[in-house]
C-alpha cells in the first residue's frame, strides 16, 4: 500500500487535468463528481496507508519516483516520504478536503459550468500541491508544494477575476508568501552549503549531531521560520489572510483555515530537531506566535464581516500553534492543527451556508435570528463556537489546554497572555454567534423571506465536521486523564530524536487540573458576558471611537505597511525610471552622440575655404610638431 503513495497526489492531479482541459465540455454534475471523487479516492488510499503506518515500530518509508535535480554534488530526488506525520496530514487534507469539495458542489452551483469546472480544477490542483508539500521527502519537494499552494490560493482568491479588489487580494497573498519563500530558499541554500543535501533522511540526522545552540542551525531555523511566517500568516506577514477571504467561502475553509496555512506548522514540526537545537529561535517562534494570537484576537473583537472574524480567529489560532511549537510541544501543535482543522472548517462552512442563505451578505450587523430559519447550520455553528472557545469535552478544549499547560510550564507570563487570548477568542466567537443567529433579523425584507436552510450537500459536511469537532479531541487526551495519549504515542517516532535531546518541562497533575478549571470557568464567564451584550443586538449605526475604532481598523497595520513599504517602493521605482534611467544613463549615452555632432559642427568651421588660412595652419602645425619633435626628445 505504501508504495502506491504516488496515487494520492496523482488522483487530484488527474482531477485537475480533466476539469481543467475539459472545462468547456464537462457538465456541472460531472465536474463535481470528478473533483470530489478524486479527493475521496485519495482519502480512502490515505486511510489505508494510515492503517499500515499506525502499526507500532513502523519506520519512515521513502518512495523515490525519479531524479529531479542533479547538479554536481547536489542530488535532489523527486521522492515521497511516508511517516506518521505526513500520513496524519494526508488524512486531514484529503478528509476535510473531500468534505469541502462535496460542500462546494452545491455552494458554487450558481457559477457557469465552465467556471464551475475551473473552480474544481483549481481546488484539485490545490490539494495536489498540498499533498506534495506534506509528502515530499526533502525540502525542495516541500518548497514545490509550498509555492504550488501559493499559486492555487492566488488563483482561488482571484477566482472572480472581474473584481479588481479580489485580484489585488490575490496578488497581495502571493507576494507576501513570496517574501516568506525567499527566507525559505535562503535557509535551504544555507543547508545545502553546510550539509550538502536537503533530504530529510540525510539532513536531519546530521543536524541531530550538531551541538545545541549552533549559529548555523539558528540561522537556518530562523530563515525557515520566515518562510513559515509568510505561509502561516504570522506577524508581520499576516495581513494577506484576512484579505484572502475574497475567495469563495469553501476555499477559505479549506485553504485559509484547515490546510495551507498550517504548512508552516508542518514545516517546523518536520524539522523539529532543528528548532530543539536552536532554543533562541524557539523563543522567537513562541513570542511571534503569541503576539500574533493576541493581535489577531483583539482585531477580531470588532470585526463585523462574518468571514473576517473567522479569518482573524484563524490567524490567532495559528499563533497559538506557533506558541506551542515555540515551547517545544510539537505534538500539541499538530494536535491543535487537527482539531482546528475540524472546527474552523466547520465554522467557515457554516458561515458559508449563512452567506448562501443571506444571498451574499456578510455583515453580521445585518443578520440575526437566523436560528429559526436554519436550525442545522445554527446547531453546528454553535458546536464550532463551543469547540474553539475550549468548552470542556470538545476537541478545542483538549488541544488548547494542552498548549496552555505547556506554556505555563515554560513561562508563566506567556501563559497569562495565552489565557487572555483564549478568553478573547471565546468572546468574539460568541459575539459572532449571537449577532448572527440570535436576536431578531436586521436584514432587508427580501433577504428575510429568501432565508432557508442549505441543501443536503452543504449540511452533510457540517454534520460530519461537527461530530469531529466534538470527538476529535479524544485522540490526544492529556496525561492527567490517565487515558493513553494516542496521538502523542502515534507521533512519537517523528519527535523522538528531539525529545531525547531536551526534556520537555512537565507540570504537576494537580496544577494542570487547576489550570483547566480556571480557564474553563473564565471562558464560560466570558461567553455569558458576550451573550448578555449581543444576544439581542441592535445596530445603532453610530461610528466607533477610541480603541474600538483602532481595532475595527485592524490597528491600521495595512495603512502602515502601505506607508513604509508600498509607497516607498513605488517612489523608488519612479526615481529609477525618471531620474536615473531617462535623465541619467540614457541622457549620458545620447549626450555622447550629441557631443560628437556638436564638435563636428565646430571643427568644420576650420575649413574656411581660404588658402591663406590653410597654409597658415600648416605652418603653425609644422612649428608645433617641430617643437615637440626637438624639445621633447
Amino acid at each position, binding site marked *: 500500500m505504501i508504495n502506491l503513495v504516488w496515487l494520492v497526489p496523482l488522483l487530484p492531479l488527474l482531477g485537475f487535468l480533466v476539469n481543467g482541459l475539459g472545462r468547456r465540455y464537462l457538465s456541472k454534475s460531472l465536474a463535481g463528481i470528478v473533483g470530489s471523487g478524486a479527493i475521496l479516492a485519495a482519502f480512502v488510499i490515505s486511510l489505508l496507508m494510515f492503517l499500515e503506518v499506525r502499526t507500532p515500530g513502523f519506520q519512515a518509508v521513502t518512495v523515490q519516483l525519479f531524479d529531479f535535480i542533479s547538479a554536481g554534488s547536489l542530488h535532489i530526488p523527486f521522492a515521497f516520504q511516508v511517516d506518521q506525520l505526513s500520513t496524519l496530514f494526508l488524512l486531514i487534507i484529503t478528509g476535510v478536503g473531500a468534505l469541502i469539495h462535496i460542500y462546494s458542489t452545491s455552494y458554487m452551483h450558481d457559477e457557469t459550468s465552465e467556471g464551475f469546472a475551473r473552480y474544481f480544477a483549481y481546488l484539485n490542483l490545490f490539494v495536489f500541491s498540498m499533498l506534495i508539500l506534506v509528502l515530499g521527502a526533502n525540502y525542495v519537494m516541500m518548497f514545490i508544494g509550498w509555492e504550488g499552494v501559493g499559486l492555487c490560493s492566488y488563483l482561488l482568491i482571484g477566482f472572480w477575476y472581474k473584481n479588481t479588489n479580489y485580484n489585488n487580494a490575490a496578488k497581495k497573498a502571493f507576494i507576501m508568501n513570496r517574501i516568506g519563500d525567499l527566507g525559505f530558499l535562503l535557509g535551504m541554500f544555507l543547508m545545502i552549503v553546510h550539509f550538502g543535501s536537503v533530504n530529510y533522511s540525510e539532513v536531519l540526522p546530521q543536524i541531530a549531531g550538531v551541538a545545541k545552540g549552533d549559529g548555523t542551525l539558528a540561522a537556518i531555523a530562523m530563515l525557515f521560520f520566515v518562510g513559515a511566517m509568510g505561509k502561516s500568516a504570522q506577524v508581520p506577514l499576516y495581513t494577506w489572510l484576512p484579505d484572502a477571504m475574497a475567495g469563495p467561502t469553501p476555499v477559505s475553509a479549506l485553504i485559509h483555515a484547515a490546510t495551507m496555512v498550517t504548512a508552516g506548522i508542518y514545516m517546523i514540526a518536520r524539522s523539529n530537531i532543528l528548532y530543539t537545537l536552536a532554543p533562541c529561535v524557539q523563543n522567537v517562534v513562541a513570542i511571534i506566535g503569541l503576539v500574533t494570537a493576541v493581535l489577531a484576537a483583539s482585531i477580531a473583537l470588532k470585526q463585523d464581516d462574518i468571514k473576517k472574524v473567522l479569518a482573524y480567529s484563524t490567524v490567532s489560532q495559528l499563533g497559538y500553534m506557533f506558541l506551542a511549537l515555540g515551547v517545544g510541544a510539537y505534538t500539541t501543535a499538530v494536535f491543535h492543527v487537527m482539531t482546528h482543522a475540524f472546527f474552523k472548517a466547520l465554522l467557515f462552512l457554516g458561515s458559508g451556508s449563512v452567506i448562501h442563505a443571506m444571498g451574499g451578505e456578510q455583515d453580521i450587523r445585518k443578520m440575526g435570528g437566523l436560528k429559526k430559519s436554519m436550525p442545522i447550520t445554527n446547531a453546528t455553528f454553535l458546536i464550532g463556537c463551543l469547540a474553539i472557545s475550549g468548552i470542556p469535552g470538545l476537541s478545542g478544549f483538549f488541544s488548547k489546554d494542552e498548549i496552555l499547560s505547556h506554556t505555563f510550564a515554560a513561562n508563566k507570563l506567556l501563559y497569562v497572555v495565552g489565557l487572555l487570548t483564549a478568553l478573547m477568542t471565546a468572546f468574539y466567537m460568541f459575539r459572532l454567534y449571537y449577532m448572527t443567529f440570535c436576536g431578531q433579523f436586521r436584514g432587508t425584507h427580501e433577504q428575510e423571506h429568501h432565508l432557508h436552510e442549505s441543501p443536503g450537500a452543504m449540511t452533510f459536511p457540517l454534520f460530519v465536521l461537527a461530530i469531529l469537532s466534538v470527538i476529535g479531541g479524544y485522540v490526544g487526551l492529556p496525561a492527567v486523564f490517565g487515558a493513553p495519549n494516542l496521538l502523542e504515542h502515534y507521533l512519537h517516532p517523528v519527535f523522538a530524536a528531539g525529545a531525547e535531546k531536551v526534556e520537555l518541562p512537565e507540570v504537576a497533575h494537580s496544577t494542570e487540573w487547576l489550570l483547566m478549571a480556571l480557564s474553563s470557568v473564565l471562558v464560560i464567564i466570558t461567553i455569558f458576558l458576550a451573550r448578555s451584550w449581543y444576544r439581542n443586538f441592535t445596530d445603532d449605526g453610530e461610528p466607533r471611537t477610541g480603541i474600538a475604532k483602532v481595532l475595527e481598523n485592524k490597528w491600521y497595520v495595512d495603512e502602515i505597511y502601505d506607508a513604509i513599504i508600498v509607497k516607498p517602493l513605488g517612489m523608488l521605482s519612479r526615481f529609477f525610471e525618471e531620474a536615473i534611467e531617462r535623465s541619467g544613463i540614457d541622457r549620458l549615452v545620447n549626450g555622447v552622440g550629441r557631443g560628437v555632432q556638436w564638435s563636428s559642427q565646430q571643427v568644420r568651421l576650420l575649413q574656411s575655404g581660404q588658402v*591663406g588660412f590653410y597654409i597658415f595652419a600648416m605652418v*603653425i602645425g609644422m612649428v608645433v610638431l617641430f617643437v615637440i619633435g626637438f624639445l621633447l626628445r
Partner: protein
Amino acid sequence: MGMNLQQVVFGVLSIISLITALGVVFSKSPVTSVLCLILTFFTIAGHYVMLNAQFLAVVHIIVYAGAIMVLFLFVIMLMNLNAEGEPQKRNWLKYAGAISGGALLVVLLAALREASLPSLTPESNNIGLIANLGQTLFKTYVVPFEVSSILFLSAMVGAVVIGKKEH
C-alpha cells in the same frame, strides 16, 4: 679680423639676396616683386659661382631670370595687375603670417644650430664643370633624366588641356 675675401663676398651677396627677397614679399607692386626676385636670383647665381657650380650658375640665370621670370612678367602684364589692383590683406592675417614664418625660422635655426659639419675649403674643385656634370647625368642619372620626360609630357598635355578654349 680674419675675414678673407671669400667671406666678404659671401656677406655682401647674402645681404643683397636677403634684402631683395624681403622686397619680393613686401613690395606693393607685383612688377617690383618680380624685379626683386630677379635680383635675388642673380645673387644666388653669384653664390653658385663661389661654390664652383659654374655650369649651374649659367643654367640658373638662363632658366630663371631668362625664362621663368619673363613668363611671370608676361602674365602680370597680361592681367595688368598694378599696385592698386593688388588687394590688401586683412592685417591680423598679415602679422600672423609674418609671425608664424618667423617662428618657423627660429625653430629651424634652433634645430640646426649645433649641427656639426665639415667646413668648406677655399680651394676650388671641378665637379661643377660641364664635362663632369654631363658624365654624371648621362651615366648615373640617366633614369631620372628619362623619367623627367614623362613629367614634361604631362605638363605639356596639361598646358594644352588647360589652355585650349572649349567650344
